[in-house]
């Protein structure tokens, strides 16, 4: 059983909602990236989404755009990200790590090369924002190497297509809570609840909901019907500018602890 599957199985047994924080790899301080990952786990993360910086993040709002720009300005690339995961794995063998990003860095790195390096580093899955199901044949080497391909579903996804996505979902299905970019405004919990219920009826994989979840209140609202919540922009924004490891750890704890508590109170 993969680390992702094992983690969701354990959450189900415990009756808990998963907490999936997203951070941009290399931000706010590349030298403390591994410390940041451990801090996320210590503050209650069940799975880590690590953003691979890309120069042209079309699906991201300004917060994650700027985090990517800062990381790229510091020279962060795929090789660093894989190196940090490998270092993280030396002390944490159980928390799943999913790399999230865009296709071009993988295309240029080479899919087969990326697949073997990622598995060796201890990456569990990848979520490629600009690689819909129709284009995912290029990702065959990733699956062959044992990486799980996390699919996205959106409010605009038509029913027939949703059935296909549910069918092919691995690890978990990531439901994008609204049509928009990361970090944007408000959630309509009732609309999301209905869609997620439909997805859970057809997908074997658990469903994580992301985009627009900013705090304990919104996380708790989503937790009523989702298997996990993803929190990205609000966390990245909170971390921006933190230069020291202890400051990063403190900010992570300050941000995630109330969310963890709210989820567990559910």
């Amino acid at each position, binding site marked *: 059983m993969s680390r992702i599957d094992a983690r969701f199985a354990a959450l189900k047994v415990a009756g808990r909602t998963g907490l999936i924080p997203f951070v941009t790899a290399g931000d706010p301080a590349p030298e403390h990236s591994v410390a940041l990952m451990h801090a996320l786990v210590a503050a209650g993360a069940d799975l880590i989404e690590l953003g691979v*910086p*890309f*120069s*042209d*993040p*079309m*699906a991201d*709002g*300004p917060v994650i*755009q*700027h985090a990517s*720009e800062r990381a*790229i300005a510091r020279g962060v*690339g*795929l*090789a660093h990200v894989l190196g940090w995961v490998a270092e993280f794995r030396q002390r944490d063998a159980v928390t799943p790590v999913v790399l999230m990003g*865009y*296709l*071009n*860095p*993988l*295309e*240029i*790195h080479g899919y087969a090369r990326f697949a073997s390096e990622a598995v060796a580093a201890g990456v569990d899955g990848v979520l490629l*924002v*600009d*690689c*819909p199901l*129709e*284009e995912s044949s290029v990702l065959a080497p990733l699956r062959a190497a044992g990486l799980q391909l996390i*699919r*996205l*579903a*959106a*409010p*605009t*996804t*038509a029913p027939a*297509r949703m059935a296909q996505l549910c069918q092919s979902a691995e690890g978990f299905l990531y439901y*994008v809570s609204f*049509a*928009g*970019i990361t970090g*944007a405004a408000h959630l309509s919990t009732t609309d999301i609840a209905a869609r997620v219920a439909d997805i859970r009826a057809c997908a074997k994989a658990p469903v994580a909901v992301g985009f627009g979840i900013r705090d304990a209140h919104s996380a708790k609202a989503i937790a009523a019907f989702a298997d996990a919540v993803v929190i990205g922009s609000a966390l990245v924004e909170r971390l921006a500018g933190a230069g020291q490891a202890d400051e990063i750890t403190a900010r992570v704890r300050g941000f995630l602890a109330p969310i963890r508590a709210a989820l567990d109170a559910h």
Partner: protein
Amino acid sequence: MSAPPIRPIPSSTPQDFHAWPDAHGRFGDFGGQYVAETLMAPLAELAAAYERLRRDPAFIAELDHDLKYYVGRPSPIYHAQRLSALVGGARILLKREDLNHTGAHKINNTVGQALVARHMGKPRIIAETGAGQHGVASATVAARLGLKCVVYMGSTDIERQKINVYRMKLLGAEVVPVTSGSKTLKDALNEAMRDWVTNVADTFYIIGTVAGPHPYPMMVRDFNAVVGREARAQMLEDYGRLPDAITACVGGGSNAIGLFHEFLNDPGVRIVGAEAAGHGLASGQHAASLAAGRPGVLHGNRTYVLCDDNGQIAETHSVSAGLDYPGVGPEHAFLKDAGRAEYVGVTDDEAMEAFHLLARSEGILAALESSHAVAQAMKLARELPKDGLVLCNLSGRGDKDVHTIAAREGVTV
């Protein structure tokens, strides 16, 4: 007796270059739909609407009417006799897209897409722009059809194309400065995509070049292909034969594919795209994705891109904002790999020299983008005998560039 070996398909078998893209929006290995899940439904909706409209005689008649009475088509082919004599080779012929309404080929596409938008019932259009020509052409058709128009433009480009920014505002469009990334065309495209993903219900995105996800590369090509259709017929009528070579500048590649497409299945016609070599291909400061880039994924399609070894898209340089783009339309990538078209670099200096030569010898101020094509046409003409014919797409007029040229040459206007 053993069976005779199975022979491979002879490589000389003529390929139908008009058969692309395939049903998945691919031109061989290039093209496709590399977008966020949220956009898959609106792209499917657009592809279905366009597929219906492109076969609808009423839509085609509507488009032809607009091209004739609003854009001012057909544009003539002009024999640049004095320029040809100065170059001292083949005859240089100019397809005068600069004479279109709004001063460039861009209007061919926006007229078409705006009609599609109206048929789809979308009241709001958005566009990205580099030099501002596509922004102006979008604002123009939006004004005419009474649609709300928002144009995204890199803040660097806003600075160097002030006249076009003001033109868009006069036409009632809102111009939104984009300050992320390199603050140029690629970033404007990212921001327009973000707007579209957020406002898919009521918004039609008019992409200005033959890039983006399917069906855009096909649709934008189809709307610009009127250039090549006219030109091929005009060549046969005025010169009794097809040209020996055709050339156009390539940024995203819409004016080039517009000219090239009708000639793709004419093997006797040499096809050359002129990319922006900026300070020279060796300098690293250029925008020649095909001549100096590699296959990658950008803005929804697989194509040649300029990027570093981490896959980060490069910041490009060209004297012309309209060519300052690190990707290129996927059909051009396909034509390059298929060997049907050549793509070469033309430097800032060569383009400037061509600009001045054309202005002084023919009384035509070409856009800096188009000046790259003129420079390439001059090179091709030198290689051919005096009775040879080189057809160059003069894709836009240079009025918008007067301030840039003056600044470059240290002149205060």
